[in-house]
C-alpha cells in the first residue's frame, strides 16, 4: 500500500557522454517513452528527465526493487539498442535518498558546475511534460513542487549561483562593477583566440554595444568583425582607435606589450579620463602591467581572472554546504508528509483529533451543568461519542479501502489537509512515518 519514490538514471558523474547520448530521449519521442514507462507493471507515477548531463527517471511504485528493475529495463531499451556496461553506469536511489537526490538536482548541487541554474528550468519542463501526459500523481506532484521551492530557497538564502566561474563571465562581472551600463560601451578585440572570442561574445551578449576588432592578419580581423557585427581596423592603426574602446581584450602572440602606459596616458587624455578596462588573456602579456597603476584604468590578466574564478568556486563550495543543510531540512519535511500518507496513522490521528474536540466541548458543557445526575452525564457522553463515530464512519471506511489506484493517497492527503493533521505528532502516526521509506526486502 505504501508508495516508494525511486530514482534510476545516469549522469555526468557516473557515465561518459557517449553512454548518456545513447540513453537520452529526444523531445519528439517523449510521448511514446511515457507510454512505455507507464506500461510497466510496477511503475505508478513517473517523470523522465533527459538533458545532456543526465538521463533519469523519478518514479513511484509499491515495490521499490521491482519498480527500479522496471525503470532500468525501460532506460536500457530506450532507443532500442543494447548498451555495453550499462548497469555499472546506473544509479538507483530509494526513499529518503531518492527525495534528497531530486532536491539536490533541482538546487543545482549535483550539476557539473555547482550552482549553474539551467537544471531547474529543465526539471520544470520535464515535470510539466509528465503532468500533461498524465504520468504524475499526488506524490510526484508534491515532490516536484517541493523540489522547486527548495531550489528557490537555496538561491534566495545562499549565494551559490551569484558568482562567475568562467573567464568570460568573470570579465563581464568585472565590467559591470566598473561601468554603470554596458549598452553604450565599445569593446576592442586585439588579436584572436578561443578565450578572447568567448569573452567578446559574452560582453556583447550582456549588452556591450560596439566591437572593434584588429589583427596582424587583417583578413582575420574582418572575419571576426563580420561574425560579431563589429568594425575591423588594421593592426598598425589600432592605437588611434583605442580612445573609442571602454573594454580592451588582448590576445596576440606578441612578445612585447602592444599597449604601453604612455599610449594609454595619451588615450585617456583624449577620452577625458573615461575609465578603461583592459583584459589581458595572452601569455606573454599584451598589456603593460603598469597600466593598473594608472587612474581610471583597470587591468586584469589571465591569472587575475583565474584567481577570481578560484575564489568564486571556493565561495560556491562553501555556499553548497549551506545549501545541503537547507536541502536536509526540506527532505525531512517532505518525508514526514510522505510518511503520513498511510491509512492507519491517518485514521488514528483523525480519531484523536475528533475525540479531543469532543472531550473539550463535553467537559465545558458538563462543568456548567453541575445539577445533572450520573445517568444523564453518561447519556450525554454516549450521545456525543455516537455522533462522532457516525460522522467518522464513512470517511474512515473510505480510507481503509485498499485500492491500488491513485485515489487512496489522494484521500489520505485530503484528510490530512482538511483536518490539519500534517503537523500532529501522535506516537501512532510517528511509527508509521518512516515505513514507506524503508527499503523492502
Amino acid at each position, binding site marked *: 500500500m505504501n508508495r516508494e519514490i525511486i530514482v534510476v538514471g545516469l549522469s555526468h558523474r557516473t557515465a561518459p557522454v557517449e553512454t548518456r547520448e545513447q540513453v537520452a530521449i529526444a523531445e519528439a519521442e517523449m510521448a511514446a517513452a511515457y507510454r512505455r514507462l507507464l506500461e510497466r507493471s510496477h511503475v505508478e507515477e513517473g517523470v523522465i528527465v533527459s538533458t545532456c548531463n543526465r538521463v533519469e527517471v523519478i518514479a513511484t511504485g509499491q515495490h521499490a526493487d521491482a519498480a527500479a528493475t522496471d525503470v532500468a529495463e525501460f532506460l536500457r531499451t530506450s532507443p532500442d539498442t543494447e548498451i555495453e556496461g550499462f548497469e555499472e553506469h546506473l544509479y538507483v536511489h530509494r526513499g529518503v535518498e531518492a527525495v534528497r537526490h531530486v532536491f539536490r538536482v533541482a538546487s543545482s548541487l549535483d550539476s557539473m558546475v555547482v550552482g549553474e541554474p539551467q537544471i531547474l528550468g529543465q526539471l520544470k519542463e520535464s515535470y510539466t511534460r509528465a503532468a500533461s501526459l498524465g504520468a504524475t500523481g499526488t506524490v510526484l506532484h508534491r515532490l516536484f513542487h517541493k523540489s522547486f521551492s527548495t531550489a528557490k530557497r537555496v538561491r534566495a538564502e545562499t*549565494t551559490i549561483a*551569484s558568482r562567475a566561474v568562467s573567464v568570460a563571465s568573470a570579465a563581464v562581472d*568585472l565590467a*559591470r*562593477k*566598473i*561601468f*554603470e551600463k554596458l549598452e553604450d560601451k565599445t569593446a576592442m578585440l586585439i588579436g584572436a583566440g578561443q578565450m578572447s572570442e568567448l569573452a567578446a561574445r559574452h560582453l556583447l551578449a550582456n549588452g556591450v554595444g560596439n566591437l572593434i576588432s584588429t589583427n596582424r592578419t587583417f583578413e582575420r580581423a574582418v572575419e571576426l568583425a563580420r561574425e560579431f557585427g563589429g568594425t575591423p581596423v588594421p593592426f598598425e592603426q589600432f592605437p588611434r582607435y583605442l580612445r573609442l574602446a571602454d573594454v580592451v581584450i588582448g590576445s596576440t602572440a606578441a612578445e612585447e606589450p602592444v599597449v604601453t602606459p604612455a599610449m594609454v596616458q595619451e588615450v*585617456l*587624455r583624449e577620452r*577625458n*579620463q*573615461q*575609465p578603461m578596462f583592459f583584459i589581458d588573456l595572452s601569455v606573454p602579456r599584451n598589456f603593460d602591467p603598469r597600466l*593598473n597603476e594608472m*587612474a*581610471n584604468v*583597470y587591468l*586584469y590578466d589571465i591569472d*587575475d581572472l583565474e*584567481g*577570481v574564478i578560484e*575564489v*568564486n568556486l571556493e565561495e560556491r563550495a562553501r555556499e553548497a554546504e549551506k545549501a545541503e543543510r537547507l536541502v536536509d531540512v526540506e527532505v525531512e519535511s517532505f518525508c514526514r508528509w510522505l510518511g503520513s500518507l498511510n491509512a492507519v496513522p491517518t485514521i488514528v490521528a483523525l480519531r484523536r483529533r475528533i475525540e479531543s474536540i469532543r472531550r473539550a466541548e463535553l467537559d465545558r458543557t458538563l462543568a456548567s451543568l453541575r445539577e445533572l445526575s450520573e445517568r444523564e452525564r453518561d447519556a450525554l457522553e454516549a450521545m456525543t461519542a455516537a455522533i462522532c463515530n457516525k460522522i467518522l464512519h464513512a470517511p474512515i471506511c473510505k480510507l481503509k479501502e485498499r485500492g491500488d489506484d491513485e485515489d487512496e493517497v489522494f484521500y489520505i492527503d485530503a484528510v490530512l489537509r482538511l483536518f490539519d493533521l500534517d503537523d500532529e505528532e501522535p506516537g501512532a502516526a510517528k511509527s508509521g512515518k518512516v515505513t514507506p521509506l524503508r527499503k523492502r526486502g
Partner: protein
Amino acid sequence: MDIPELILTMACYLAATASFVGFLLTSRESLHRAGSVLLAVGFGVHLVAIGVRSIEGGRLAATTLHEALSLLSCIIVGAYLALQGRFKLAVIGAFVAPLAFIVTLSAVLFYSGVQDLPRTLNTVWLPAHIAPALLGYAILAVAFCVSIAYLLQERQLKAKRRGGLLQRLPPLETLDHLNYRFMVWGFSLFTLAIVTGALLAKTAWGEFWSWEPVQVWSVITWVLYALLLQSRTIGWRGRLAARLTIVGFAVLVLSFFSVNFVFPGKHGGHFG
C-alpha cells in the same frame, strides 16, 4: 528638552549602521532591510524630537548650533531615504547612517536651551537662508558618502580583491555619476544660501557683506566646490573627484564649526 528623543534617534542610527555594515560584510539581505527600516524609524523619532523642540521655542528649531546640527542630520537621513529608491543607493546607507549618528551626537553634545531670536533676524530671509543651507549641506554630505564608497570600490578593483564587498557596492561609474549629480545640487543650494544669507545680512545688519567669518568661510568653500565642479570638464573624474569631494566636505565641516567657535561673529550662537 529634546534630548530623550535624540538619544533614541541615535540608537536607531547606530543600529542601522551596524545592520548596513553587517550587510556589507555578510550580504544577508535581511540585514539590509533591517538597516533601511531602522534608519526610517530613527528619522521618524528625529522628526518628533525636532517637533518637540519647535513647539518649545514657538518656531522651527533651526537657529542655535544644537538645533541646526539636529535638523541637519535629520535632513541628511531624509535626503538619503528620498534618494535611495530613485538612485538605487542601497549600500550607501552604510556610510550615511554613521554620519547621521555623528552629527546627531554632536547636536546632543552642543546642547543649549531655547534662545530668543534677535528681532532683527526675524525676517522672511531667515528661513530662505536656512532651508537651502541645510539642504545643501545634507546633499553634499550624501555626496561625501558616495565618494567614500567610490574609493572603497576602486581599491577593491585595483587590488583585484574579489570579496563580497565588491559585489555589493555599486559600479564605479554609477558612483561617479551620483557624486557629480549631488555635487551640482548641493552646490546650487549652497549658492542660493549665500545669496539669501547676504539678503538676510542686509535686513538684519544693514549691509550685504561685512566680511564676517562665516561669510569668508562660505566663500572659500564655495570657490572650492566651484573649482571642483569645473575640474570635471578637464577630466578630473573618478578617484580624483572622489578625493576632492572628501576634501571639500572636510572644509565644509570645518567652516561650519569654526564659524561658531573659533571666530564667533554676529553669526555665532545663532547658526543659520
